[in-house]
């Protein structure tokens, strides 16, 4: 099992880098060319969500991305360290002003909606110590030469 790991400060400008790296590793792993756009978008959504969670919770730790090449599949794990509350709960640190909180929640949900619409094999877990989005795609093994 080969893995590429990426850790980046929770800043919007690094999300593009994560997309580019993920797409490059996915291509190398044998993910179908036609699916690479989906990989790029899904990993971007997951990283955007993690960056937002870190920023709104004031977490200085980096966002973690693992790109895992397995025998017949390629998986991406995007991990954050934000303590997750039960959906629907108002987070205790939420700023009072205007409608900023609701907008953030909506965007967060839209990101997840895009991921679940794009990726068939996706798992979202969250706990007090952070969340993890794991997404997998099938890979085609390199064509064997017929003598």
């Amino acid at each position, binding site marked *: 099992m080969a893995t590429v790991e990426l850790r980046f400060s929770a800043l*919007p400008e690094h*999300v593009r880098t994560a997309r580019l790296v993920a797409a490059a590793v996915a291509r190398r792993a044998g993910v179908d060319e036609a699916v690479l756009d989906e990989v790029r978008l899904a990993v971007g*959504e997951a990283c*955007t969500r993690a960056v937002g969670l870190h920023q709104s919770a004031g977490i200085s730790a980096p966002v973690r991305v693992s790109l895992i090449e397995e025998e017949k599949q390629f998986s991406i794990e995007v991990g954050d360290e934000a303590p997750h509350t039960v959906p629907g709960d108002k987070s205790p640190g939420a700023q009072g002003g205007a409608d900023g909180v609701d907008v953030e929640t909506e*965007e967060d949900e839209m990101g997840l909606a*895009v991921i679940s*619409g*794009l990726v068939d094999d996706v798992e979202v877990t969250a706990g007090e110590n952070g969340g993890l989005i794991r997404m997998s795609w099938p890979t085609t093994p390199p064509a064997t030469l017929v003598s």
Partner: protein
Amino acid sequence: MDLSLSTRTVGDRTVVEVGGEIDVYTAPKLREQLVELVNDGSFHLVVDMEGVDFLDSTGLGVLVGGLKRVRAHEGSLRLVCNQERILKIFRITGLTKVFPIHTSVEEAVAATD
């Protein structure tokens, strides 16, 4: 690649030509542009997405925000897009029902519902 924005007026419509990648980093620039147009009294917008290479949910959020603003002034926000990979994101999120999506700027500018 970064985001490029340019605007021009066609009749009573303002066409916003967007190029490059709309993501969490660049979307605020698009938001600023749309807010500025509405504040300056342009309520009928056509956003030309033909030069967009990448669009994520942050970008969708900005477009929905723009739509909300123009609607507050009984305006309109139409999109021009023929790229399958971009259209797919609108379909997944159900936003094809929210935005009128046209195949050319000419068509969008002429449309009145």
